[in-house]
């Protein structure tokens, strides 16, 4: 049984009050959350230390300008948080952060994680013209009804990992019909309970409604299948891949925003990946012509070998691609397939080793000769 802190307020208001409580009581020094950053209504992740600034916070705004896992890594890369901070993040952001922590790119210390069952986000480009009230209402209606909104990020539409694994506190959103009246926060850990102590509200004990979750997961699963089938039909040998990736402009924005890509210098931008004149000469001998800069497929496939095992399917790569290559679906599909092979769910457990740095003596006999 999990304890639930229930506030008789709208979820949005409830969470803001809880954050204010955490800050005002000094339980945390800072709040990491989405926030309106100007009068135009642009949204960005912010670090808030004063409760007045909380009025502009929008913790569950359906947008992921940057995967917060990457930001938390930046926050704790040069030393773990010395003072307690609360981070309100989406499940895939939390998973991404866990994957980064496994790679020594951040620290969980002194961070209280609040996440939610997640209804997904809109593509970031939607904010360019502003996300209208209508679109917001449509979003929250869909969340209440546990339905899949069709204009979400493709990665979100087929996301089956919408329940956070390691959040200290999980806010009940998906399928929570009384979203406007109640704010329900599951206190999953003792840390969560400690921080919620003395917060005015009702404490209930019950499990999260599994039926509700499963039903939504089935919907997402079906959607995912559909999306994967679509992309599958295009993955048709080398020529098929050239059709998909041919228009890549080589900006590598996908790796720049990828929460799992953490290298200082990407291998595909390193001297090793440069062609010298003799490489060009031999390529030309072989093919008669060669694309310049070369290595589009090499980059994409190579990146799959680097991050596929840890891809959390957040979809940031889709958002950033200036030529609309359906990256997230490809990476998610292949990522999940590789992850399944090792029975690995990225970001599920910080103590679980990344499959490529460990092995079992008896395994995969089928590939050997």
């Amino acid at each position: 049984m999990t304890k639930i802190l229930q506030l008789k307020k709208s979820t949005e208001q409830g969470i803001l009050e809880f954050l204010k409580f955490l800050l005002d009581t000094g339980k945390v020094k800072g709040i990491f959350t989405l926030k309106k950053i100007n009068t135009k209504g642009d949204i960005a992740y912010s670090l808030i230390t004063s409760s007045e600034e909380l009025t502009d916070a929008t913790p569950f705004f359906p947008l992921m300008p940057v995967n917060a896992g990457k930001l938390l890594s930046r926050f704790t890369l040069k030393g773990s948080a010395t003072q307690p901070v609360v981070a309100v993040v989406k499940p895939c952001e939390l998973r991404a952060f866990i994957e980064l922590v496994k790679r020594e790119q951040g620290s969980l210390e002194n961070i209280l994680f609040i996440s939610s069952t997640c209804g997904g986000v809109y593509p970031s480009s939607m904010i360019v013209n502003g996300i209208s009230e209508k679109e917001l209402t449509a979003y929250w209606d869909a969340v209440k009804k546990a339905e899949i909104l069709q204009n979400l990020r493709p990665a979100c539409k087929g996301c089956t990992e919408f329940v956070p694994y390691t959040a200290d506190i999980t806010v009940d959103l998906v399928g929570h019909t009384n979203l406007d009246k109640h704010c329900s926060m599951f206190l999953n850990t003792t840390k969560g309970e400690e921080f919620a102590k003395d917060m005015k509200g009702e404490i209930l004990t019950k499990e999260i409604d599994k039926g509700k979750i499963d039903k939504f997961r089935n919907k997402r699963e079906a959607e995912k299948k559909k999306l994967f089938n679509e992309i599958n039909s295009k993955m048709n040998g080398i020529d098929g891949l050239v059709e998909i990736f041919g228009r890549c402009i080589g900006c590598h924005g996908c790796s720049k925003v990828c929460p799992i890509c953490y290298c200082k210098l990407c291998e595909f931008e390193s001297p090793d990946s440069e062609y010298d004149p003799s490489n060009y000469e031999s390529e030309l001998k072989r093919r008669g012509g060669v694309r310049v800069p070369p290595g589009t497929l090499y980059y994409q496939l190579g990146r799959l070998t680097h991050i596929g095992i840890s891809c959390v399917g957040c979809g940031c790569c889709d958002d950033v691609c200036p030529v609309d290559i359906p990256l997230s679906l490809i990476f998610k599909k292949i990522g999940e397939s590789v992850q399944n092979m090792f029975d690995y769910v990225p970001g599920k457990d910080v103590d679980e080793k990344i499959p490529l740095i460990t092995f079992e003596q008896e395994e995969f006999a089928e590939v050997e000769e």
Partner: protein
Amino acid sequence: MNTSINKQEQNGAIIAVKTNVRDTINDFFKKTMEKGIFDAILIPMQVPAGDSFVYVLLKDSSLLKDASPLSPIMSVQGAKAVSSITRLGKGHMKIAAFLRPCETRATIELTKLEQTNLDNITLISMDCPGVMPISDYIEDPTKAMKLFENAIKNEDDTIMRPVCQICDKSSMVAGDLHIGLLGAKKDTFFIIPSSEKGKQVLSDLDITVKDNIDSWTSKTQAKAEEKQKKRKKAHKELRLKTGALDNFLDTFAQCINCHNCMRVCPVCYCRVCYFDSDKVKHPSEDYLQKAESKGSIRFLPDTSLFQMGRMTHMSLSCVSCGSCEDACPMSIPVAQVFSMIADETQELFNYNAGRSLEDPLPLKAYKEDELREMEDDHD
């Protein structure tokens, strides 16, 4: 500022167009390969899916028939392509690189920064009608192609990218050879040599350079002047929009720190960008402290540092090619802002990025008696 942007070329050669300009240019290159003048040609070509054009280096001259010298988009800045081929050395092959004027100029800037080796490269440019935003093209390639062809025919730039619409250097000759479409009689175009290398190519092809190109000169001059007016006006309006710090911040408010603009920028050549390096990463308490001083900070806090910092790094070499804007997933008018700043910083030093290999990079040179007006205590 020097408005006469072209080196004074007196003569060129008039080339007759057989079926269309594209085929004639491709044919021209084919001949250079057959004569052994070039071993390979760098030229745009449509990808198999038809949804983009990329640079290809061709050695097999039969492939030239599919080349698209007049491609409607600029998916990769050509200077980056030249750099990719020659950064590590000049190699054995003699290569013709067919680039737009802004790509040629960026190539010249990169050469000053040791990122290309032009020994075996002949730079050939062409009057540029501008290019469409990549996203417009990808949305419906067939329709876009028609629009583009019509736009060229009608000399209408309204479908082109905003920076192309205000480009005053679309016929600037900075390379070795230039193909002049403007002012040419029907079914012809000019080919104009602008260096010894260029002249040699033409003479090897037995093309005599004695045709008068006045019509091209006056037409391009007029166009440049018109565009320059348009450019000044656009920059003035933009200045109003982005002038104050708040406005500037608002302009870049939606930046998601993907740094695509930097990645595709032809003159951003660093292996690891300063703004991605350890120098901008701090301990958590620094961030908290910063937040405490203001109540809250945007995280990452470096958006404006990145944009402004990048300006200090590359605005003197900025060729206003617009690649950054094409690559911005948040549709921020990066190129417009950068071109405005670049015009101003370059003017400070009477520098014109990519105009000539001979002009030293302003920050690599100085004059003893200059910029006194910036000093506090000048007499």
